[in-house]
């Protein structure tokens, strides 16, 4: 006769074995985060990613800060390779480019790479989220405060942001905006470019172009546009805080969550592969109320709207 105690014990043991096995299968998914340097935006992404990982049962094994240094970066990434995580999240261009070189057999999700197309971040293990909000969404956001926007000026270095301009031209036309372009090849030409376009435009669109945007040139661009009553539109809230009128920029925290979601999807596939490069799902509109006031703009329609941040 079979003792009941043995029967209970056997069931409990089977349950525990199954639970443990399921848990072990599920909990094996680990992630490593590599951030290029210690930036506020990167930290927000990481924060979002952490939250997303918890939701998606992904364990973050370690977080590395490359501190912007190439040599350290390579050393760290080589070390990560030995850790063999299931997936790697790279934040910023330094972490992404090194990981791309060093971790060809580990799936990775990149984000916060400005104008990622320049770095050819493609590969079977590479998935990414663009930093820039889709152009249509950007223009839609700008239109909420600038109804009569017709001629949108843009200064750019073709070697750096030529691809953005190329794809923007057709999209802009569809919205009914005329793009007034001015090419420059060095930062010294910013002043000349401003003089050239300032009289022909309703607003200036400031791309994340390192030739156009430098520490010195931003002050000149801001003062020139303000003097000529031209709204300055950017791709980062940092510039809005510094005096630009508005920026449509991705919600960094949500970018982290979006990355975690992508990581889950990659890990849930039978064979890890690339999901391609996607746009950020959520973005914010930042407006500087002081600048708007100087330009004679009213912000009644946008005040209180979700995803709208007003700085003074």
């Amino acid at each position: 006769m079979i003792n009941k105690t043995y029967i209970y014990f056997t069931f409990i043991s089977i349950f525990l074995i199954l639970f443990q096995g399921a848990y072990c299968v599920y909990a094996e998914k680990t992630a490593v985060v590599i951030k290029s340097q210690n930036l506020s935006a990167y930290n927000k992404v990481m924060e979002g990613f952490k939250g997303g990982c918890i939701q998606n049962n992904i364990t973050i094994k370690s977080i590395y800060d490359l501190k912007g240094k190439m040599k350290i970066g390579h050393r760290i990434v080589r070390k990560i390779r030995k850790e063999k995580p299931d997936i790697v999240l790279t934040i910023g261009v330094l972490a992404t480019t090194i990981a791309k070189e060093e971790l060809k057999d580990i799936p990775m999700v990149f984000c916060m790479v400005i104008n990622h197309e320049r770095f050819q971040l493609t590969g079977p293990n590479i998935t990414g989220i663009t930093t820039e909000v889709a152009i249509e969404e950007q223009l839609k956001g700008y239109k909420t405060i600038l109804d009569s926007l017709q001629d949108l000026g843009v200064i750019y270095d073709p070697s750096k942001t030529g691809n953005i301009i190329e794809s923007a031209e057709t999209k802009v036309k569809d919205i009914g905006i005329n793009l007034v372009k001015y090419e420059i090849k060095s930062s010294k030409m910013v002043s000349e470019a401003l003089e050239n376009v300032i009289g022909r435009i309703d607003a200036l669109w400031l791309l994340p172009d390192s030739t156009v945007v430098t520490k010195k040139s931003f002050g000149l661009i801001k003062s020139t546009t303000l003097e000529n009553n031209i709204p300055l539109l950017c791709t980062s809230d940092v510039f809005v805080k510094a005096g630009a009128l508005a920026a449509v920029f991705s919600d960094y925290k949500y970018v982290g969550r979006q990355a975690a979601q992508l990581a889950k999807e990659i890990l849930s596939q039978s064979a890890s592969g690339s999901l391609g490069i996607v746009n950020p799902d959520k973005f914010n509109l930042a407006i500087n109320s002081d600048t708007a006031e100087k330009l004679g703009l009213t912000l009644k329609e946008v005040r209180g709207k979700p995803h709208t941040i007003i700085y003074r």
Partner: protein
Amino acid sequence: MIRIGIRFKFILSTSLLITFIGVASSWYFSTQTKKQLEEELKKRGYSLVAQLAQDGEVKDSMSVAQKVFFEEPIRRLRNLDIEQELAYWRVLLVPDDILLEEKESWIKTEIDNVPVYHNIGDVTGPVFDILFTDSGEQFYNFVVPVYEKHTIAEEEFAAQIFGLDEDCDESAKELLGIVQIGLTPERINKKMQTVLWTSIIPLGFMIVLVGIGVSYFIASGVVRPVINLVKITERVASGDLEQSVEIRSRDEIGMLASRFNQMTKGLKQLMDEKEGVMIELRGVNEELSSINTELVQTNEQLKDAQEQLVRTEKLAAVGTLASGVSHELRNPLSAIKNAVFFLKRKLSNKESPDIDARVIQFLDIMDKEIDRSTKIINDLLGFARVISLSKIPSDITVVVNEAMSRAKMAENIKVSKNLPSNLPMVMIDVNKIGQVFINLIENACQAMPDGGELQISTRESKGFIEIEIADSGCGIPEKTIKKIFDPLFTTKPKGIGMGLAVCHGIIEKHHGTIDVKSQEGIGTSILIKLPLEDKNARPS
């Protein structure tokens, strides 16, 4: 002693002050200019060294310790040196290794003589100092630390786009080394010299000259009214109280002029009052003076009258006495005279050896003394009988000549005469006046026992005939000069003192005057004045 005026003092002191201000201003201006030029040089130096230190290629080159990569950064640095002030540049790696050191060819100092920074690990920020080399050159030396490239360029741009994290520690950077550059201050020294000679010194001179000119005009403006005031004060001091100062301003000078005018006005009032009082006092004084004169005259008259009275009484007494005594003595003397004459004749007719020769001698003495006594008696009688005169119009020259011929004069007496012939006739008693002249001439001769000069002159003066008899004799003592006309006063051992008294009496009877002037040892002068008009003559 040189008198230094207020204008000179004012101009001197003001000029000194303005010169001091001018020099101080020039010094301040030159100091500020030099400071400004030095500041500009320092700014350029900091900018150049910062450009070099921030150059990516420099950092990369320092990271790999290869100086060949410096060619381009140094070329850019030299291009940035528009003012041509860059003298040398040096790159040092941690710990203290010189990676690169070069200088411009025109700098005399060798680069080895430019001090090398040690302990570069301690350099945390830009350092500036001024170096002096052994060759005497001066350099403005700039040093900045160079840190390892923080991030790759794209991440730097990302940081710019996304913004730095609030707790990002920028100081956690690795020091690669330092870059050092030197700028020569030659250009600013030349500029300073130019500024000094074209602006500061001319400006200083202009300040001084304008200051002196302005102070001269100010001083003149102040001093001119003062000088005018001084001139008017001098005039007022010399008695012209009508002067007044023109008041042109309401300042202190104007107040002084106003007070001066008030003072002058008050002074004039006082002087007028004083003048009135003085006039009154002068009148009173004149009155007192005239009263005093009258009193003196009256007193003198009284004195003269008293003297005259005394003299008259004395003469009267003498006259009375002389008249009585002379009359009584004349007869006995005549009898004695006759007796002596008889004895002398008797004795002279007989030649007897018994008669002593001394008897004849004594008789001669007796005879002479009798004559002398007779003369005295005659004088006394003459004095007593002088009262009656028999005046006739006479030529005084004739009378004088007659008297001179009769008077006894020694041979050693030199006589000088000044007797004009055209003198008017004068009413005199010729015998009496002649007796006076003889008396006076003989007295004068007796005063010159050792010889001398007798001067006799006559002249007409103011209604009088003046006769002056002067000798160069022994003179008369001052204390006895007033008594010589008194009767019985004599200085001669054998005189009785009646001669001059008789003369005085005769002249007075003629209403004339007789005065004596005498100085002991020089001589005596007697002046007789006889009126031309006879006061006793009855009108026809």
